[in-house]
């Protein structure tokens, strides 16, 4: 490691209002190195990379590439300096072709024609070189998530990037796709490129990186060679204190609450569901693992009441599920935590109490004859819920948009758990939250389990599922595997099932085939 640093951050500070997202960060990167940037959600990793890539401007400090200061706030300058970024949310236009997505911005905007032939040649050569193959003429909308990521990497390489930044690249991949990505990254670094790898998954970082920098609350709390690091130490550095995540306590499952039989749906533009069978019992958390977009959204929409085009039987406590009517579903004892807090969970432009009564506003407690709102009762209840769920806010009449992600999720939780539901649908309930909020949300779910709720937990995070659920099933290509004990399979085995395209091998043990399981 005696080569000159190719990239250096010097005292970079970035504030958003009162929040210090990056606090005096200094960091350097050498050719051939894979630097892992480790930190919790909200630790400032993405902000730092957005400064590097010119999306944001730092308030203080500088970024040096090859010893020369990078002009602030210019993506173009960053690209020209050899920086390429693979964003967490792909920056691709779905209705355009792979080639168009890659060549955009590589030719002068004043040119009177595109030199399609020579760009195609360059791209072909590159794909050969790095072993990354994609059909250049395919529309991006026809590509799988893994292929899209390859397009993103090709986009950076096409512009002769020497520093490649990958922001949470494995979040959308199966473990197998992830290991393919890792071998690509290794072949890239042997050519002298440097990689910054952003993640909060420890095992990945230990596998792929040569050096780790740990961010906490916007500041670097430590840097070390990966060879000298171990899991516990990194976790301790990342979180800063030992946060004990709540653990499952053994409890005997009760009666079946949610029963799904032969559920099949066209999906209405989303992934279709094929012959789903699943039963969730009282006092039980069942996890659904799988890469996003394999049908979890369709299932969640059906259970939430947003989609009612399906065949098969759906029972809650042996009664028919109130399909297609969210308020009836809620009234029948279901609590729902949607995947996207901002888009679906809350109307952020309305006040907190208004959001808290949205699900039962037509109930006699909240309105007279479904016409006049009983604001006194609604406000009183909102105050109680704010107290009970420890929502940090100025009061029930505060605007919801002012809340942090964690506090907003607490509100959603408060609303979902308000009537002590028999069944809870929790779709990615902790995504994007910090450790404290995660512990709070998970604790609430476990309490609900203790009280006898049946819980369906949809998540992409295997670690979370394996520690928090009694049983699990894997969703792939619209099919659901048989239910198994959460401790029964290793992460690698589950990964294989996630990547199986729905061709699940018959699982061993007593619960094969039926997808229904009772007892220990």
């Amino acid at each position, binding site marked *: 490691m005696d080569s000159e640093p190719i990239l250096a951050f010097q005292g970079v500070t970035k504030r958003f209002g009162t929040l210090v997202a990056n606090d005096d960060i200094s960091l350097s990167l050498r050719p051939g190195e894979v630097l892992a940037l480790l930190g919790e959600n909200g630790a400032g990793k993405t902000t730092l990379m957005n400064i590097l890539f010119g999306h944001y401007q730092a308030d203080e400090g500088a970024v040096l590439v090859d010893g020369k200061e990078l002009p602030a706030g210019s993506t173009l300058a960053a690209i020209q300096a050899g920086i390429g970024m693979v964003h967490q949310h792909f920056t691709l236009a779905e209705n355009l072709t792979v080639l168009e997505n890659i060549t955009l911005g590589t030719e002068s905007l004043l040119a009177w024609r595109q030199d399609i032939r020579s760009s195609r040649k360059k791209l072909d050569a590159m794909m050969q070189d790095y072993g990354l193959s994609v059909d250049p003429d395919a529309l991006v909308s026809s590509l799988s998530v893994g292929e899209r990521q390859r397009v993103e990497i090709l986009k950076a390489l096409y512009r002769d990037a020497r520093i490649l930044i990958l922001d949470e690249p494995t979040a959308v991949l199966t473990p197998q796709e992830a290991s393919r990505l890792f071998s690509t990254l290794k072949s890239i670094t042997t050519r002298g490129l440097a990689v910054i790898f952003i993640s909060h998954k420890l095992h990945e970082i230990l596998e792929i990186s040569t050096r780790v920098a740990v961010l906490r609350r916007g500041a670097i709390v430590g840097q070390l060679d990966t060879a000298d690091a171990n899991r516990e130490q990194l976790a301790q550095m990342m979180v800063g204190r030992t946060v004990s995540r709540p653990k499952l306590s053994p409890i005997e499952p009760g009666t079946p609450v949610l029963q799904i039989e032969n559920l099949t749906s066209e999906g209405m533009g989303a992934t279709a569901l094929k012959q789903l069978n699943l039963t969730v019992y009282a006092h039980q958390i069942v996890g659904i693992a799988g890469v996003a977009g394999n049908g979890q959204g369709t299932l969640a929409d059906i259970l939430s009441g947003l989609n009612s085009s399906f065949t098969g039987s759906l029972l809650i406590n042996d009664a028919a599920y109130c399909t297609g*009517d969210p308020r009836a579903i809620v009234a029948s004892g279901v609590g729902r935590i*949607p995947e996207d807090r901002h*888009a679906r969970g809350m*109307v952020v*432009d309305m006040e907190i109490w208004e959001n808290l009564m949205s699900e039962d506003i037509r109930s006699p407690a909240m309105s007279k004859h479904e*016409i006049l709102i009983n604001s006194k009762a609604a406000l009183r209840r909102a105050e109680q819920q704010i107290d009970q769920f420890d929502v940090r806010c100025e009061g029930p009449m505060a605007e919801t948009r002012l809340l942090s992600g964690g506090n907003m999720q607490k509100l959603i939780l408060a609303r979902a758990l308000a009537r002590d539901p028999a069944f809870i649908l929790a779709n990615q309930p902790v995504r994007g939250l910090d450790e404290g909020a995660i512990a709070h949300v998970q604790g609430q779910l476990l309490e609900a389990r203790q009280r006898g709720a049946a819980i369906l937990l949809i998540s992409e995070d295997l670690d979370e599922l394996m520690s928090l659920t009694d049983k699990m099933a894997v969703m792939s290509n619209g099919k659901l595997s048989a239910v198994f004990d959460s401790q029964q399979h290793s992460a690698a085995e589950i990964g294989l099932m996630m990547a199986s395209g729905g061709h699940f091998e018959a699982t061993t043990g007593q619960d094969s085939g039926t997808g229904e399981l009772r007892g220990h």
Partner: protein
Amino acid sequence: MVIEPRQSVSILHAGLAPIWAILVSMIICAALINWAGAPVFEAYGLLVKGAFGSAFAIKETLTRSIPLIFTGLAVSVAFRAKFYNIGAEGQLYAGALAATFFGTGLVTMPAPLMIPFLVIVGALAGGALLIVPVLLKTHLKVDEVVTTLLLNFVVLLMVSYLIEGPWKDPMSLGWPQAASIIDEGVLPTLMAKGRLHLGLIIALIMAVLVWLMMRYTVQGYEIRAVGHNAKAAEFSGVRVNRTVIMTAMISGGLAGMAGVSETAGLKGYLTLDLSPGFGYTGIAVAMLAQLNPLAVIPAAVFLSAVYVGSDAMSRAVNIPTYIADVLVGVSVLAVLCSVMFSQYRIRWSK
């Protein structure tokens, strides 16, 4: 240049936004007045005098504000649900058509029944005109702006056909106009002199009713929720399509009432120049009111004063009357801008 939300929006700041917008509009129009060679302050003085300078002027301004309150309410309800109804002009004429159809002899009732009857059929007609655009929006995702705009032209041609053809008043000496509303249906004037009529009271009542609905009823809550975030509203159980359709009916109904009030109140009969663009000005009214139904009242009076006053001003200092339309157009843009700056701020560097 970076635009970022303000940490806190002071009520003062937000409430002043329309005032800023009006000031900016007046400054821009001052440039035009100056270009026309008239002394700016004197011209504005004449405008104010023309609108409020005498009892007659005040009554005239209030009379002219009646249709603007209705169309302003129509637009503000619709825009709250992000249903961009730009067809208030057509719905106004639809209301006028209904008032003419039922009010010229087909139905006869004593006035206390006849007037509410006409208001209701006018509202129904205005709402009915929105059925096609709203269903196209909810079921086929066809942009409602274009369909409602196009329907304005269709309705106007329909009016032209009817008053030149089957509904033409034989007593009108060749002018294309419909028969007069029967006496029981005519909105009585409020004061002995002047044209100020019962429509004002109806408009004020509607403003209060719409305000109450938006604030205190489930329907109003659902309209707001759908407008702010239709997906979240749907998730929590609001029937989004039904709410949008309901919003459209209320909006069209309010615009239809404007037509009734103009036909049965001001003129007494339907003509092709019943509305000099009240439907479009309603957009400016609603924007200046920041979609608040009660604020629609002062906003409508203000823009009405601009029209009435600019008539007087242009006669006196020889400025084209279109100056009033320019001010209306600029104020829509200015209020958009000033409301934004009450919520966001621009940072020029870093």
